């Protein structure tokens, strides 16, 4: 043990406490418990014990419900400090009994800082009742713990915490209980952590003492449990206490320990060393769980990314194939050209104002508004279908994984596109149209713009660039459909000439990049619904690495 140890422990504790393990992997619950146990044991036991090696031995009396823990403590003290009875479970709040001189070690939050202290009244769940008793030898404190196996799960959790904080366990079992599965799990934990251990075999009928004791010893050997075995016979209680003669083995062992400072120090060191030795392995398991969480999160993220990448591909394919040009869009474009709106715009803004007035009066939309809407509808339909498909695919992929499944269940509607998709798509498409118009307006005044494009006016040129975006690579296929649509040859010739125009192409390329950017943004927002679920549930990669360093630090320091 080096002087750096407390610091290293504190770092490890903080790193563990900050480690999130909230993806529901098969062993995540186990890992979370291990993490909380480690944090608890460091706070409750390791740090206080390292700082105060001279503090009294804390002996936790633990075991099954009905094994007689409280009766033994009461009998040792000679007073009713913890209620005993036939109803199970009896003890619901932990009681700490110590010599009055030792009380100062326990009434602050040196150990078990999260358990508030009480000094009178009956034991209550959630507090640690402190009872000074001159009968208890100095240098030794007894903590009557709740049971480990009754129907009250909070008892089990508290017992686990208290046992982790003990310098030594006084483990109480009975002739009827000694082969139960649950206590042996606790004993195996004590073995792994190197906790000093004494087992009290209580309530042994006189005729069975030899047989049961021999069997228990055999089991202890088989399980490699190294412990003192103290046997207490089954007797009728006198005023709720064990007779002194029956209690003698336990009292003798405790008195011996109390008298021998050397033995006490030895016991403390043994448990502390054992706990420190078990620490890297246990923390390592938590670290592995953290790494597994990271891997699972990466896997989930990549599934979602894959789904949305293919959605993006789908949209790009639709843009490239020229299929957005078919039907209405091109027809409307021809209307814009055909009605001479462009010409009029060039000639006089008054005429266009008149047109607009007419459209207000007649209720008919301007051809350019209709074209704007046609483009909007088409783009929206394609984006929506792609986003729906991606959401469905990602949700399906997630629900095939245990971690993802739990997440999908927390977020209903995840397998569909988000509610905001429609309005967001419209907004982005409109913004894109505005951007194209802006682009044309700016470039139109520059030298690079050709006369042909300029002759269309801002509106016409803008729409032409939009059409060029949809026809950019599959341009000719796009145009074939124009012919099939039965539009006038003049309009076709004009469009063909325009799409071949260098300036139009250059503008279309920029407009296309902008559109793809916007689609990306929309899809990213959609994909973020998936990524957001993982966020905050898994550790950061650095946190796992930090934990690894902290474990190494503790290993070196201890």
């Amino acid at each position, binding site marked *: 043990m080096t002087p750096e140890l407390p610091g290293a422990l504190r770092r490890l504790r903080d790193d563990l406490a900050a480690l999130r393990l909230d993806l529901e992997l098969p062993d995540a619950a186990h890992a979370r418990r291990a993490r909380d146990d480690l944090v608890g044991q460091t706070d409750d036991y390791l740090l206080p014990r390292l700082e105060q090696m001279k503090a009294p031995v804390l002996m936790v009396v633990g075991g099954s419900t009905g094994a007689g823990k409280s009766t033994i403590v009461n009998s040792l003290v000679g007073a009713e400090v913890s209620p005993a009875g036939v109803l199970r479970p009896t003890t619901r709040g932990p009681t700490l009994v110590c010599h009055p001189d030792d009380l100062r070690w326990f009434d602050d939050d040196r150990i078990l800082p999260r358990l508030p202290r009480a000094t009178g009244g009956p034991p209550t769940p959630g507090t640690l009742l402190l009872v000074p008793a001159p009968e208890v030898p100095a240098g030794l404190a007894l903590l009557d713990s709740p049971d480990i196996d009754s*129907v009250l799960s909070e008892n089990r959790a508290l017992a686990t915490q208290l046992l982790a904080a003990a310098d030594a366990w006084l483990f109480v079992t009975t002739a009827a209980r000694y082969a139960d599965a*649950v206590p042996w799990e606790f004993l195996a934990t004590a073995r792994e952590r190197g906790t000093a251990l004494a087992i009290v075999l209580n309530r042994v009928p006189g005729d069975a003492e030899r047989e049961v004791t021999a069997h228990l010893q055999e089991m202890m050997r088989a399980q490699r449990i190294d412990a003192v075995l103290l046997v207490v016979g089954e007797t009728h209680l006198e005023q709720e206490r064990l007779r002194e003669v029956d209690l003698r083995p336990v009292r003798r062992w405790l008195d011996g320990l109390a008298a021998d400072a050397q033995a006490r120090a030895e016991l403390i060191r043994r448990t502390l060393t054992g706990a420190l030795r078990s620490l890297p392995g246990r923390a390592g398991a938590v670290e592995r769980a953290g790494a597994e969480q990271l891997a699972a999160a990466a896997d989930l993220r990549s599934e979602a990314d894959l789904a949305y990448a293919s959605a993006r591909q789908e949209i790009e394919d*639709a843009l490239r194939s020229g299929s957005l040009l078919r039907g209405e869009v091109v027809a409307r474009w021809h209307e814009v050209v055909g009605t001479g709106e462009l010409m009029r715009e060039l000639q006089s803004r008054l005429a266009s104002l008149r047109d607009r007035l007419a459209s207000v009066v007649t209720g008919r939309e301007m051809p350019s508004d209709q074209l704007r809407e046609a483009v909007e509808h088409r783009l929206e339909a394609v984006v929506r279908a792609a986003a729906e498909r991606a959401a469905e695919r990602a949700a399906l992929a997630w629900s095939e994984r245990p971690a993802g499944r739990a997440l999908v269940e927390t977020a209903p509607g995840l397998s569909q596109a988000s509610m905001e998709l429609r309005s967001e798509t419209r907004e982005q498409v409109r913004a894109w149209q505005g951007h194209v118009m802006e682009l044309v307006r700016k470039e139109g005044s520059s030298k690079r713009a050709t006369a042909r494009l300029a002759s269309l006016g801002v509106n016409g040129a803008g729409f032409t660039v939009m059409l060029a975006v949809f026809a950019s690579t599959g341009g000719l296929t796009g145009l074939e459909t124009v012919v099939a649509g039965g539009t006038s040859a003049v309009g076709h010739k004009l469009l063909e000439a325009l799409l071949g125009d260098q300036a139009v192409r250059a503008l279309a390329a920029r407009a296309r990049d902008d559109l793809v950017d916007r689609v990306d943004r929309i899809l990213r927002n959609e994909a973020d619904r998936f990524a957001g679920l993982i966020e905050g549930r898994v550790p950061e990669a650095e946190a796992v690495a930090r934990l690894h360093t902290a474990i190494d630090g503790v290993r070196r320091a201890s």
Partner: protein
Amino acid sequence: MSLDLDARLVALDEAVRVADGRLEPEEVGAGRRVIEKAGARLGLGIESTVAALAGPTGAGKSLLFNALSGGDAAAVGRRRPTTSEARAAVWGDGADTLLDWLDVRMRHRVDGDGLEGLVLLDLPDFDSVETAHRLEVDRIVELVDLLVWVVEPQKYADAALHDRYLRPLRRHADGMVFLLNQADLLSASEAGALRDDATRLLGEDGLRDTPVLVISALTGLGLEELRSLLVERVAARDAAVARLAADVEAAAETLRRWCGDMQPPGVRKEQRERLVAALSEAAGVPRVVEAVGEAHRRRGALATGWPFVRWVRRLKPDPLRRLRLGEGGGDGERFGRTSMPPATDVQRAQVATAVRALADEAGAGLPPPWPRLVRASAASDEARVLDRLDHAVGTADIEPSAPRWWWVASMLQRLVAAVFGVGALWIALAGVAGLLRIEDVVPLPERNGAPIATWLVVIGLAGGLLLASLTRLVNAAGARRRRRSAERALRPGIEAVADELVVGPVERELAAHETLRRSLAVATGDEDRTARAP
């Protein structure tokens, strides 16, 4: 056996069949196991009642077994755990096949003492370090008719008992007895308090109706009460049926969590309409309709146009033929695809969105996994949908009919063309004769100040053109009418595709949900919760 159990088993069987492949395989499998078990158990007859003594190690099961069966067949010991294999005591004859089914080999017969028909099993413990014991208990607990829990004052509140067994078996409250053994170690007041506390804990487990007895297998305290309770249950011969009914209920209740309490809205008319519209668009119906009108105008012009120029129309192909449409004549016989341009990405996207919207709305309010199942049933193969649409368009009877007046108009056109021809020929002959200076061979009589031949040419020309423009107007109106009727003719085919590939599967899936919900309501014996969605 009771009719009620029979009906519930049939309902559960139906539910399991519907749930198979739709809900959690594990839970569906549990339902199937219950049905199989019920068949096997009922086949073995309900004359015998199987009761099992179950409990933690050291509770005194074997001692009680010996006390009840009046022997020392079961080993009693201090060393824990003592009993490692189940053992049976049979009152009366028979029950061998039943014990074979239970796979209990150690058996011994007890002479009937009022308990004829009872098969009592002594089970190993479930809480010791021997996990094999626990597995054996788990296996037999599933199969027996009556469960007699034997516990002692130290262990009656153990989590291993309550969490693992009692709470999951809360539907079997009537088929269980809770014994607090080793009462000889307690005072009377302690025993009473213990009994109250045990009753409280059982109540928390959902087992308010389970009888709690305080007994001592050692001194015989309370054994008479236990015996009369067993006599009653064995004589009634209802334990097996009650146990199975509770099992059916439990399995059905588990599956029922996935069904919800209400019926989904189903496929609404507007959604179907939207889908048909999207499919029409994808099938190119507007284009076909356009082509029908175009074809009618073209054919009308060919039949009734001015004969001297109408042949020009032949240079452009018939728009319907160009799309390879209207050849099938509506008899459904057709091979190969039309030459319609394939559906665009936009159209496909619109179909996909319409399908999703229809499925989502039809299954609205259903708990998972139904929304996913409904969607999956609707989203069939896209290529197949498009292929079927093409076929529907190709086989629809959209060929525009040729009106009868075309023949009359054609005749008229020929007549005025002949008039024109005669006049023109006349003038030509007169002209040729004039050139050749042959007088009076071709007479040119005049009428109203002009030669008759000129009149003939003028009347022929004007009549032809007038007739052509008149028929053109009428044909335009006819084209509009034929476009509408083509639209009507195409609709049933599109609707059939929508119904067969989308609406039908969705409705079948919803019907499966409804069947499952109803049969589970029967299986749980609770048929009232059939509220409809508002």
